[in-house]
């Protein structure tokens, strides 16, 4: 299965006035495509912190001490905030715990739904324009250097008809979207009017007329525009009849609406034109569209472009690609060697100024290794500078801070013992010194360098037998896409249609009416649906649900869980589901990670964790919730989770664990493998450990569940 998200050795702490709280202490897990991973644990076990780290919305006092969160080839902890904008909400979306506080009370629900779409569209426009400009500039210089003639003229020509293409394309898509809207709206109105269930007909009719008029274009509603205009007139004259309850008028109104729906639906079935080739044709061959069926027209324009311009242009482009690849390969080999050498020579006692100066040069070197014609951003190279800076700051500031911390601790400790020596009991306690792990920080610096070098080596190796023709095509596609995105303006109307479709898909009745309501007009379950719909507007592949049903009661909880499960199936979403309700986990999860005190203590498929739990903490969790057949006394977990300013030395759960062994208080247990998918961190699984039985409550329940399962 494809891995969507990989979390490796993640450590997160929070700086507070009482000391450093170690919220997450080295966790690893993977999330596969189309599966649900549930994270279970008591409050304060670091579940939410982990999910917030994935979303990049950690609180300001958080320190990421080490670790990686890999999404694709991107490390979410290292990429810049600007790059994160492309992921957060777009690719990774989150549903928060309380729907009332995550919606804006003074904005209509619809406005909140389309807000993100419109903003994203605006940002994409600006950025694509910038990308296109950059690409054209580097293409021009590279083509010159590679020895092609007339590159400037060719590029100008390409740019020119590309813009024509965009214009045609946006005309076509707008008309098509309007036709879609008109078809849906007229069908809806025809039904509603005949059933006498429309509140504000004139407003709806006005919207329909606008959509109809916009749908008239060369490739959408063509020959029947005359007829459509006549029908619009019928609508205008008969709108009043609905209020007066004039049956004849209503009948003609319904008939006109049905006719409009038929025309628009027919128009939606037409073949789409090839706007790119047509753009060239209109710019350089003839300035009007020849009167041919769309299919033949497409063939004609395609032939013209290929022979006239495209083949020669592509050959030139390929030369440029080849040239730039050779150039960057050289730079990469050079830099890789340099990086390896510097990483070896770097020692911990070097002067900060010298090291910083060295890295300044190194960062510039690394940036020269960027292929100017890259289509997919090489995020590791781009973020080399920032991740090195982060590691350097952590190391050198850490050194200073550790010294200061040492001084403070010595001072306070001395004062404390002075008071005790005087025979008094001090009212305050000495806050223990919290040191930053310098070994880890230094390892981070060299690690970043060697990783970068290995990455360059791999790239050079990959370039040796690369397919340059395919690369050239990708560049052309990229240029087309960015040109289109830079002129594509999402209108409010089409955003609304999209939002209404989403509202329907999350199970909200009458989305057209609900669209204009405020959050307080929705019930708890409906509100949570809106939050989920907002999370889905950008079509993410990872959905993080942070206790989405804890604030809701059983019936609504069941509805929301069903909804998330259905969406998961439909869109092949990967879901991270955070909760402390084990019943909900059993319903949702494919795999389960049980967290305690910032660590994953057990990790396995749902069946494994529920039917053969291995960690005492999982036993305790299972035995502390009653199910419908529980009669015996519940086994509560004594005590409270440990204070994470002073994390315990051994197994964090040992003080509350009646199955604890002596070693649990001294050494942290490693992850023991039980099956290929099932791991648990407890010394009980060590071959030398005494045999322990899980609590009777749990065994009995598992037996009961097995019997039930067998009966079915």
């Amino acid at each position, binding site marked *: 299965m494809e891995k969507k998200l990989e979390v490796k050795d993640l450590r997160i702490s929070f700086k507070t006035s009482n000391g450093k709280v170690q919220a997450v202490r080295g966790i690893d897990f993977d999330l596969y495509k189309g599966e649900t991973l549930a994270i279970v644990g008591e409050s304060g076990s670091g579940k939410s912190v982990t999910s917030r780290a994935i979303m990049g919305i950690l609180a300001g006092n958080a320190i990421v001490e080490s670790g990686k969160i890999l999404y694709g080839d991107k490390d979410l902890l290292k990429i810049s905030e600007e790059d994160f904008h492309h992921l957060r909400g777009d690719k990774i979306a989150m549903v928060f715990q309380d729907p009332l506080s995550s919606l804006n009370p003074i904005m209509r629900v619809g406005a909140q739904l389309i807000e993100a779409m419109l903003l994203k569209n605006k940002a994409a426009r600006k950025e694509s324009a910038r990308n296109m400009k950059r690409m054209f500039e580097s293409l021009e210089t590279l083509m010159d250097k590679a020895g092609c003639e007339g590159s400037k003229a060719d590029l100008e020509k390409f740019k020119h008809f590309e813009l024509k293409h965009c214009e045609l394309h946006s005309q076509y898509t707008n008309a098509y979207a309007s036709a879609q809207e008109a078809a849906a709206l007229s069908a809806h109105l025809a039904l509603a009017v005949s059933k006498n269930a429309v509140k504000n007909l004139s407003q709806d009719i006005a919207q329909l007329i606008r959509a109809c008029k916009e749908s008239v274009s060369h490739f959408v509603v063509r020959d029947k525009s005359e007829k459509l205009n006549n029908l619009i007139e019928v609508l205008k004259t008969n709108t009043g009849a609905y209020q007066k309850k004039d049956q004849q008028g209503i009948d003609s109104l319904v008939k006109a609406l049905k006719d409009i729906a038929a025309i628009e639906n027919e128009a939606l079935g037409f073949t789409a034109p090839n706007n790119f080739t047509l753009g060239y044709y209109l710019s350089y061959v003839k300035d009007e569209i020849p009167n041919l069926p769309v299919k033949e027209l497409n063939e004609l324009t395609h032939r013209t472009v290929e022979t006239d311009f495209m083949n020669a242009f592509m050959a030139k482009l390929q030369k440029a690609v080849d040239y730039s690849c050779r150039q960057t390969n050289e730079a990469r080999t050079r830099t890789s060697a340099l990086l390896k050498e510097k990483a070896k020579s770097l020692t911990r006692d070097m002067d900060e100024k010298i090291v910083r100066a060295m890295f300044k040069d190194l960062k510039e070197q690394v940036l020269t290794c960027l292929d100017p014609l890259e289509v997919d951003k090489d995020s590791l190279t781009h973020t080399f500078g920032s991740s090195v800076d982060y590691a350097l700051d952590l190391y050198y500031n850490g050194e200073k801070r550790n010294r200061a911390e040492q001084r403070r601790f010595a001072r306070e400790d001395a004062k404390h013992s002075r008071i005790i020596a005087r025979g008094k009991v001090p009212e305050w306690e000495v806050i223990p010194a919290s040191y930053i792990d310098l070994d880890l920080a230094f390892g981070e610096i060299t690690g970043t360098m060697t990783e970068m070098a290995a990455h360059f080596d791999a790239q050079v190796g990959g370039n040796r037998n690369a397919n340059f023709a395919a690369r050239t095509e990708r560049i052309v596609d990229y240029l087309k896409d960015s040109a289109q995105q830079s002129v594509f303006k999402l209108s409010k109307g089409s955003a609304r249609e999209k939002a209404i479709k989403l509202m329907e898909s999350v199970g909200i009745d009458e989305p057209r009416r609900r669209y204009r309501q405020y959050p307080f007009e929705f019930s708890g379950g409906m509100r949570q649906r809106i939050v989920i719909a907002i999370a889905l507007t950008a079509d993410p592949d990872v959905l993080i649900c942070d206790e989405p049903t804890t604030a809701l*009661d059983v019936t609504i909880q069941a509805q929301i869980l069903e909804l998330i499960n259905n969406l998961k199936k439909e869109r092949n979403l990967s879901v991270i589901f955070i909760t402390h309700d084990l019943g909900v986990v*059993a319903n949702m999860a494919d795999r389960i990670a049980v967290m305690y005190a910032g660590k994953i203590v057990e990790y396995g498929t749902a*069946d494994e964790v529920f039917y053969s739990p291995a960690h005492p903490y999982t036993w305790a969790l299972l035995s502390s919730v009653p199910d419908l057949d529980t009669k015996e006394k519940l086994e509560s977990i004594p005590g409270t989770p440990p204070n994470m300013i002073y994390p315990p030395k051994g197994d964090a759960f040992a003080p509350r664990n009646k199955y604890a062994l002596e070693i649990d208080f001294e050494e942290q247990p490693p992850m023991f493998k039980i099956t290929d998918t099932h791991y648990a961190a407890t010394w009980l699984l060590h071959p030398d450990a005494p045999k322990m039985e899980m609590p009777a409550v749990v065994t009995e329940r598992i037996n009961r569940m097995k019997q039930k399962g067998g009966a079915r």
Partner: protein
Amino acid sequence: MNDDVLLSVQHLSMYFGKGPYAKKAVDDVSFDIHKGEVFGLVGESGCGKTTTGRTIIRLYNATGGNVYFKGQRIVAGDLEYRKEIKDLQEKLKGASAEEAEKYKSRIAELRTEIKKARHDQKHADKKLVTKIQMIYQDPVASLDPRMTVREIIAEGLKIQGIKDKAYIDEQVYKMLDTVGLVREHAQRYPHEFSGGQRQRIGVARSVIMNPEVIIADEPISALDVSIRAQVINLLNDLRNSMGLTILFIAHDLSVVKYFSDRIGVMYFGKMVEMASSDELFLNPLHPYTRSLLSAIPQPDPEYEKGRTRISYNPLVDHDYSTDKPSFREIKKGHFVHCNQAEFDRYLKILK
């Protein structure tokens, strides 16, 4: 059975607002709680569970119905009387002299009843009412952050007029011990405790009044999983050692099933079904109860894969256009809100 009824709720109604726009939070709810039992009240949020509890403990002035505690009326509403007076006054308009006389005397009778009810509501026996205590949902919000635990727990005793400091201290320490806290905790403030400990303080505060009935209003829904078991076990121990009677309000059905002897299911201010907890889960009759039971998730992946939710829509599931429903006993101790046709159908299902 009738002898050991400790708390009897009869036709209790609580409306917020007046006239046709009144919000009927509780509408004609009746049930008895026997001595020493735990009565669970379940339903979705906003169905009037909490309002029922609060009306019983006289935090609201009931609109209609009565609550008898140990045979004494402690809550009295006048809705029925007012309704009857209104009807009679309508009839008076077209009545003959003889009938009018009859109606008038009845109205006068009803007016005195109303006066009595108002008197009872206002002057209920304070000593008796303190025998009913409440535990609130959110331990963070229900404990005064500026009072020490000692002050919080002793407040009830002080209000009762006890001034002997040594006695109060002794009682407070005893209570702390009962709920599993230690003496030193008396000096501390609520914020210094964990969630489970805070809820224990809430329990200690209500138990110090030596109550006979405790109304526990979702005492565990604001708590963490591991702590829930602590609080349930504590309430169970107290019930066994002190012979407490508990009205347990919650929406987590697994817990209610585990903890209660009898369960009442509420839906939009009405009690739709009431039975012993085993009976209710074995033979749920009302469609709402079925839908509620089918929505409970269980910590069992196999079972969860096979579970299908039944949805409930009162417009589809009932036809009350001709025959109005009422609360009927269908089997000994099993009551359902239904009309005659449904009653017959349920009887068939039971057989």
